[in-house]
Structures are given as structure tokens and as C-alpha cells.
């Protein structure tokens, strides 16, 4: 029985590793400038964690195999090196491992969060709400009109609560339900939510950031590949959470300009 358990454990461990090694299920391909840092960090961690995982399970299996159902006469022996050996081993191996991971992790993290947006980054405002994202482009004047929460009305599609009769800056603002951005041009995303907590997750862009009610959060990124990607919500926000999504269209600069014109016409 013990031997079967040993085999089972080792078998499970190896089989579990197969899909990882085969890359059977992988995240959408990275199309961002900073993404590769995260992917590399992920890969490194995968190797180290994978080794720890396999080593642990196999060792467990081996010992179960060897020391289950031994004959009654056998004497009890201690693991060479005893507890201290293992403790020191744990500190050396795991300690250095996590230290390394931690340090490299900082590199990737600070790349995303501790760098200021470029001066020419395109400002785009995203508003999360139950259960859709809406986007606002500042228009010709490059200024976003002020938001009047009391004016927000989805029935008349005044989604941002703009007062275009009184706020000149609001007149040329463009509100859209899809997000379009030019390729290889940095985007400065200004995030706010109109109701509860939401999150802005674009797997292909390696971007995830929560919307915090009552707080304006900013994010900046650059997409490197033309295409259509998905923006989804990862912060439980209510019954429509599963269907809270929007499409991200990465276009050439020319297409982007046309798109903006067309959207402006629809306002």
C-alpha cells in the first residue's frame, strides 16, 4: 500500500508538470513594452517553484516507498544531518531563492509603477461602472470637461455626467464604448469608477489595476502590436461581473485618427 502511494504521489507530480512544460494553456501573447519583464519573472519563478515542487514530492514518495511496511526488527535511524541540517538547508536554498525572486521582482514591478508617463503620452480616461467600461478622449482642446456625478444618466447616455451647455471643455470630449489606441505610442490611462470597485485587466498587455471608489488611479503602457484585445473586470462588482468587458483596438496612427473622427461624429 505504501509503495502504491509513493508511486501515485510521484506520478501525480510528474503529470501535473506536463501541461506546464508543454505550454498547453498559456496567457494571450504579450503585446506590451513592459510585458516581457513579467513573463521572464514568471518563467524564472516557474523553474524554481517547479524544481521545489518535483523535488519535494519525489523525496516524499521515495521515503514512503523505502520506509513503509519495514520488518519489525528494523532500528529507528535519524536523517543524516538531523533537523539542524535540514533547517540550514531550508534557509540556504529557499532563503536565497526567495531573495533572488524578490529582488528581480522589484525590477519588473518598478518598471511598471515607478516610471513617469512620457510627456507625449496620450491621455485617455476610463470609467468603470456596473457593468461596462466607457472611455473618454479629450478631443481637440486636449482637455477633459469636469464630471458632474449628479448628471450621470445611462438612459440618455450621459455616461460621464458632462454638462456640455456650461463646460466648454466638455463640448469636444469623445465618449466611446471601445478603447482604441495607436500602436507603439504610450497611453496615459486615467482610471476612475462611478460606483463600486472594479478592475482593469488586459492579459495581452500584462496590465491589471483596480479601480478604487473615490480615488483616481493612473496607469501608463505602450502596445506594440496591431490587433483586437479584451479588457475584462477582475474585481467582483455584482451580478454582471462576468460580462463586464470592452474591446481594445490597437491601430496604426492613421486608422486611429480616422476612428476618432468617426466617433466624434457619433457624439
Amino acid at each position: 500500500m505504501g509503495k502504491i502511494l509513493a508511486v501515485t504521489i510521484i506520478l501525480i507530480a510528474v503529470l501535473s508538470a506536463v501541461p506546464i512544460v508543454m505550454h498547453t494553456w498559456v496567457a494571450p501573447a504579450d503585446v506590451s513594452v513592459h510585458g516581457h519583464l513579467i513573463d521572464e519573472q514568471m518563467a524564472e519563478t516557474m523553474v524554481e517553484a517547479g524544481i521545489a515542487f518535483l523535488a519535494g514530492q519525489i523525496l516524499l514518495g521515495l521515503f514512503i516507498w523505502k520506509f513503509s511496511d519495514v520488518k519489525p526488527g528494523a532500528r529507528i535511524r535519524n536523517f543524516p544531518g538531523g533537523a539542524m541540517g535540514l533547517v540550514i538547508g531550508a534557509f540556504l536554498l529557499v532563503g536565497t531563492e526567495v531573495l533572488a525572486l524578490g529582488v528581480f521582482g522589484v525590477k519588473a514591478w518598478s518598471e511598471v509603477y515607478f516610471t513617469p508617463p512620457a510627456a507625449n503620452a496620450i491621455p485617455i480616461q476610463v470609467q468603470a461602472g456596473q457593468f461596462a467600461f466607457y472611455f473618454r478622449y479629450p478631443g481637440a482642446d486636449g482637455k477633459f470637461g469636469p464630471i458632474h456625478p449628479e448628471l450621470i444618466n445611462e438612459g440618455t447616455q450621459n455616461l460621464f455626467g458632462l454638462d456640455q451647455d456650461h463646460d466648454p471643455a466638455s463640448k469636444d470630449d469623445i465618449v466611446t464604448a471601445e478603447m482604441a489606441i495607436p500602436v507603439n505610442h504610450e497611453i496615459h490611462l486615467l482610471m476612475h469608477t462611478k460606483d463600486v470597485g472594479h478592475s482593469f485587466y488586459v492579459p495581452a498587455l500584462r496590465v491589471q489595476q483596480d479601480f478604487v471608489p473615490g480615488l483616481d488611479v493612473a496607469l501608463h503602457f505602450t502596445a506594440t502590436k496591431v490587433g483586437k484585445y479584451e479588457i475584462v473586470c477582475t474585481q467582483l462588482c455584482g451580478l454582471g461581473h462576468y460580462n463586464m468587458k470592452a474591446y481594445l483596438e490597437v491601430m496604426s496612427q492613421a486608422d486611429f485618427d480616422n476612428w476618432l473622427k468617426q466617433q466624434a461624429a457619433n457624439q
Partner: protein
Amino acid sequence: MKSLYKSAAILAVLIVVALGLLSTGIHVNAAAEGKVSGTIKLEGTPPHMRPIDMSKDPTCSKQHPTPARLENVVVGPSGGLANVVVYISQGLSASAAAAVPSKPIVWDQKGCMYQPHVAGMDVGQQLQVVNSDPTTHNIHPLPQMGGGNIGWNKSQPQGSPPFTTSWKSEEVAIPVKCNIHPWMHGYMVVVKGPYGVSDTSGSFTLDNVPPGTYTLTAWHETYGTQTQKVTVAAGKPATVSFTFKAK
């Protein structure tokens, strides 16, 4: 106080009718008789209705080769104003007010829009909520807090059967929305007694109006309400027309 006036008025009407019946001596089925019809026009240029971007849910956008537009102001080619609810706000006898049509109102969700966009209904009239879309909707009516009606918020997955409900008391108007598709927006106008909703030609009809003098009210989600007096005589349908001004 208000109800006192109302009941007094109702009493008066009853007496008048009763005397009329006595004098003529012929039995008249009041309910079957009278009828108010008319048209509603919009003066001036209707506001631009934005196209709705349904890209969020492809199952919705697929159903609209040309994007659907907002329905806050729907004007027909002849300048008729649609989605106006006309109802009797004063002068209706208690018995006539109490009568509830047996035919249920169907509130359909089709192409991620509400059909109809505005529904008139009688207090206690059956309201049947249908989802004809290949996607899940949540129906979320928001009646006034503290009014006689209690709001609810129910999802209707595709393929789940229609459900019927009804409203307990008069309310003009209850906004209805779908949170999963935030552009979906409509109104339920709950009244007592006969009512009519105008179509794109602007025409409406109130059936089964017993003879008498009434105050008609026409309600529109954008342009508010208008009222007119109208007298309905037995066997002689009355016609009324309202005109709203575009802001």
C-alpha cells in the same frame, strides 16, 4: 384630502350617469361605448439620437447591422411623437377605474433593447417579461422610494421562461434598466383605467371610456406632461391631439 375630492367627484359622476339612465330609460352598457383617440405631434427639430455602441456584448451588436439609436425621442416621418402615454388623470368612475384588462402587457428584451421602450399598463395588470436574446439580461425597475411599488432586480438568462408580475399602485413613470447592458433603458407607466400609447405616427386610442367629462394627461419621458379636458358622450368617440415642443 385629495382622495376625498376624488371620491366626491366620482360620486357626482355616478349620480349624473344614474339620472341619465333613468331619464332615457334605456339600458346603456357604458363600458363598451366610449372611446378617445387622437394624435401627438412634436413641433420643431427633434434632438439628435446617438447611435448605441453595443460592442461590449457581440451577441447584441450582431443583431444590429446598422447601430440602434437611443429612444428618448422617437419621431415618425409625419412628425408624430411616439412613446407618449395618454391616460385619464381625473373624472373616472370608481368602477371603470377598477376594471383591469385581462390581456397581459409583454415586456420583451430583443436586440438588447426594450420592446416596447415605453409600456403603459393598468394597476394590477399582468406584466409578462420575455427575453428573446441569446444573452442574459437583468431587469431592474426603479420605482420611487416610499411609493406603493417595491423595486426588484432579476436576471433572465437566455432560454429561461418568461415570468409575469404586476404593479401595486399608480406610478408615472417607473424607469427600467439592465445593468449588464447599461444602454438598455425604458419606462413602465402604471395608471388606473383606460390608457393609450402613441406609435411612430403619433396616434393613440383609449378604449372602454364610459361617457363623461375627463382630464386627459399625456406623458413623455423627455418632454414631460400635458393635460386636456375631454367629454365623451355615449356612442360618440372623442378626439384629442397634443403637441409637444422640441426644446
